[in-house]
């Protein structure tokens, strides 16, 4: 309020904590409280608790809203807008970049293996893996009726062939015949080991 650099400090701090807010913004609330109440004294503990209550009872993006109230307290409307952007901007950029990367390698073998690491149960389960059953592939590790999350990694060999058939950009068109079989054999060797490794990851 008094210090002209206050809004900048607040925005920078919010941008920093929002980019490390693993598990949602509430995990960094204690740090924001320390920063706002203890370090800078922009508001009292009671006021901070009031903002929290207010944000929780209004539908919509509550933590972004709460940080906007804090920003308003420090610098009026521009402060509110800046705080909102600092709260959702960095994570949004990360989400976007991650999704782009994820989508770009949609047919990469490592990702198919990862994606098959968790699968639904019931009839849909059987349908999805029918190709595996038909090719004689044992659905080792699948526990379709236990109601637990399944740790089956699918059939990497089959997914490699599927991917190659669709001829995505990562797979050169002219080499579909031979290398597919070679990679397929390697993948079948891997799948026994892979099953245990990936089941470790997904059960944890």
């Amino acid at each position, binding site marked *: 309020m008094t210090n002209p650099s206050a809004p900048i400090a607040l925005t920078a701090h919010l941008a920093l904590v929002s980019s490390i807010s693993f598990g949602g913004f509430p995990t960094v609330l204690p740090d924001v409280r320390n920063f706002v109440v203890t370090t800078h004294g922009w508001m009292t503990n009671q006021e901070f608790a009031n903002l929290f209550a207010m944000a929780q009872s209004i539908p919509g993006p509550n933590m972004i809203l709460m940080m906007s*109230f804090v920003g308003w307290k420090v610098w009026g409307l521009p402060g509110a807008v800046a705080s909102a952007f600092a709260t959702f901007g960095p994570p949004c950029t*990360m989400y976007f970049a991650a999704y782009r990367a994820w989508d770009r390698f949609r047919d990469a073998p490592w990702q198919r293996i990862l994606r098959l690491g968790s699968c639904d149960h019931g009839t849909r389960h059987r349908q999805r893996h029918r190709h595996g059953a038909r090719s004689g592939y044992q659905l080792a590790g699948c526990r379709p009726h236990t109601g637990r999350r399944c740790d089956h990694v699918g059939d990497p060999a089959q997914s490699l062939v599927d991917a190659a058939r669709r001829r995505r950009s990562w797979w050169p068109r002219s080499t579909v015949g031979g290398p597919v079989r070679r990679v397929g054999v390697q993948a079948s060797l891997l799948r026994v080991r892979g099953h245990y490794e990936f089941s470790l990851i997904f059960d944890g």
Partner: protein
Amino acid sequence: MPLSALFTAFLIVSLCGVGGGGGIVWARRIAVETRRWISDREFADIVSLCQFMPGPNIVGIAVCVGAKMRGTIGTMAAVAGFLVIPWSVGLALGLLCLEYAHLPVLSNILGGIAATAAGLLTATGIRLLVPHRRRPAALVFAALAYGLITFGGVPLLVVLFGLVSLSIAVAGVENARAR
């Protein structure tokens, strides 16, 4: 696929999800069941991708669905739908409330809500800790994090990176010993 559809869909998701958590259910209902923009499988992928990363998960879902449907501009439409109107209305309402926060009735109501919400957060934390109750190291790290932030006033960045690296190292040693 018009951008306005993305905007309104995430506006609805935003308005329906009160208090967080419920938002994912609504996002799924609209994006997967009603509009059929993405498959169940893709939605599950997106949710796990978002949970792995920092920040508000539901905004992450808006980003991913928008990016899938219409690329960069779709992301902006979805995020704008999620944020702009609820944020403006919420800010106006909240500031109006804060004007009268000194009234005893209102301050009592706010105090009650704050206590409930804080209780809910604490309960979530405890629920996350329960599966690790047999690991003394996990309990020690949880207590350390709590103590350092609450009583020590240590910056989160220091606590996070210090304790996370230590905790991973300890878990690794424990794992190696168990084998």
